[in-house]
């Protein structure tokens, strides 16, 4: 049996009303991300990167086209269904870590299981495993204000993996970190993507981390582009080959 592509966008168009005119945020975008594949989307501000992520996370519904997540066509799905699919199949790593101030590092993860109605005991075991995976085992009782930016981002990543998602959507994970910490975070994401067979899409400005990903796509003027490779998929090989340390 062939497992479905975890994330697929077919001819997606997303527009916003902007006064008297209409802004196009995604212009006939096609994207598919395979299991274990780490895809980066780069582009200038306002190019549509965040809109792409929001559509993939089912937080925005496109005007046309089809969005398939974990085999579910969610294009016209009601909000409750999209919320459930996001909860069960999608992990989101936010730009700011967005940790809840009242929860410890461990609880930031356990709450995900609580939202999904899972057993608290099993959730605690899973949460501790993930904190070990992101090298935060000794900080499980710390609250966000007691953690550094990099540590918060590690908890943010672990939280996204809590419900064993198939799709991992990552929004500018290094924007609040220095170069060294940013590289470590992206390296961690790359490892987790491969170890867990995730279909990961990372929106980033940070070109220095691109050699760590499998594929790079460019977003410009609401269009997603890349050179067509041998397997019929698009990528930007020049960016992929950019030496570490080059970029913003």
């Amino acid at each position: 049996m062939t497992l479905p592509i975890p994330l697929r966008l077919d001819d997606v168009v997303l527009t916003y009303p902007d006064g008297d005119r209409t802004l196009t945020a995604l212009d006939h975008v096609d994207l598919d991300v395979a299991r274990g594949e780490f895809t980066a989307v780069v582009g200038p501000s306002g190019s549509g990167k965040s809109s792409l992520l929001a559509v993939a996370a089912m937080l925005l519904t496109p005007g046309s086209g089809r969005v398939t997540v974990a085999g579910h066509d969610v294009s016209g799905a009601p909000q409750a269904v999209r919320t459930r699919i996001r909860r069960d199949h999608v992990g989101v790593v936010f730009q700011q870590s967005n940790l809840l101030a009242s929860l410890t590092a461990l609880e930031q993860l356990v709450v995900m299981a609580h939202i999904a109605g899972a057993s608290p005991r099993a959730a605690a075991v899973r949460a501790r495993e993930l904190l070990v995976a992101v090298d935060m085992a000794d900080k499980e009782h710390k609250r966000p204000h007691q953690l550094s930016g990099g540590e918060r981002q590690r908890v943010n990543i672990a939280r996204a993996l809590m419900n064993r998602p198939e799709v991992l959507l990552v929004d500018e994970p290094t924007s609040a970190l220095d170069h060294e910490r940013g590289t470590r975070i992206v390296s961690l994401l790359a490892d987790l993507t491969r170890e867990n067979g995730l279909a990961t899409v990372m929106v980033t400005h940070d070109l220095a981390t691109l050699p760590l990903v499998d594929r790079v796509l460019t977003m410009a003027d609401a269009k997603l582009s890349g050179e067509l490779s041998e397997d019929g998929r698009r990528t930007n090989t020049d960016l992929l080959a950019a030496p570490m340390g080059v970029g913003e």
Partner: protein
Amino acid sequence: MFVALRDLRFAKGRFALMGAVVLLITLLVTMLSGLTAGLARENISAITELPADRIVFTTSGDSKPSFSDSRVTDTMWREWQRVPGVSTAERLGITMGRVASGERGTSAAVFGVENVRDGEVVLSSGLAEELDGKLDGNPGGKHTTVRILGRDFTVSATAGSASYSHAPVAWISIGDWQRTAGQDAVATVIALRTSGNPDLSGADARLGTTTVARDDAPAAIGSYSSENGSLQLMRGFLFAISALVIGAFFTVWTIQRRADVAVLKALGASTGYLLRDALAQAVVVLLLGAGIGGALGAGAGALAGNTVPFVLSAATTAVPVVVMILLGAAGAALAIRKITSVDPLTALGASR
């Protein structure tokens, strides 16, 4: 309740402040409820404890029944005795007057009733205590004679703790009442015991009277209506204030939590989950605040019960607590509905 309980623990100062407000309002409402019931008891118990199910008043025009204005004639009384379905129709005369024993005297409600012998008086325990404190229903005791409205009566017993219009009660015979009160009426009202389904409105129309249920008769005591109405209004305002205060607190709290709510929604929490979580948080604060406030109110009422009229019962303690919780939860529910409008998209970096 996962996030709710941890928020409570994390922001304990803010929630303690809110809980203290709920506690104080509940304490006030509980004490006011006990006092209202106590004052009402002192106002109406002689009426509500009557062995009757209907009270007949005379009224003129569209006026409401009033104990102070009602005057029953002999004809009315005899006609009411003949109404089918009326088992007994007893005359009841009510006059406020001075009751004295030796040099000690006090104001009392003098009730003329049919089951006391001429020349004798039955004193309520409150009146007996005010006069001497040693009568205790002993007709051969130290004070066998009391003076009521200038006439001497022999104390035959003390019975019950009834009071009327905040005064203790002395029961004398209806004949003595007619002579002592100096009124041309045979009674103030008629106390009916009925069976079946008598045509009371037909009899009222024919005889020019107004019949009300015994438990509705206190409204005909002028001081009761105004006093009880004012106290109930205060109680109502306190309930409304508590709902508004709790609603205001949770409105601000929900606004402060909008970013967290957006994150939880973006992570897959349903709106229903978040609403339940937030409402549970409010209910915990209300349960603790109102529970402790109600318990303190009951304790204070029990201590004050010897010096002020205070009724300690489920109706004056548990009911205000439950009403506080329900109204507070309603106020909180209105406040936290803002959760439904939080857009999870705001959790993504581009929009924050």
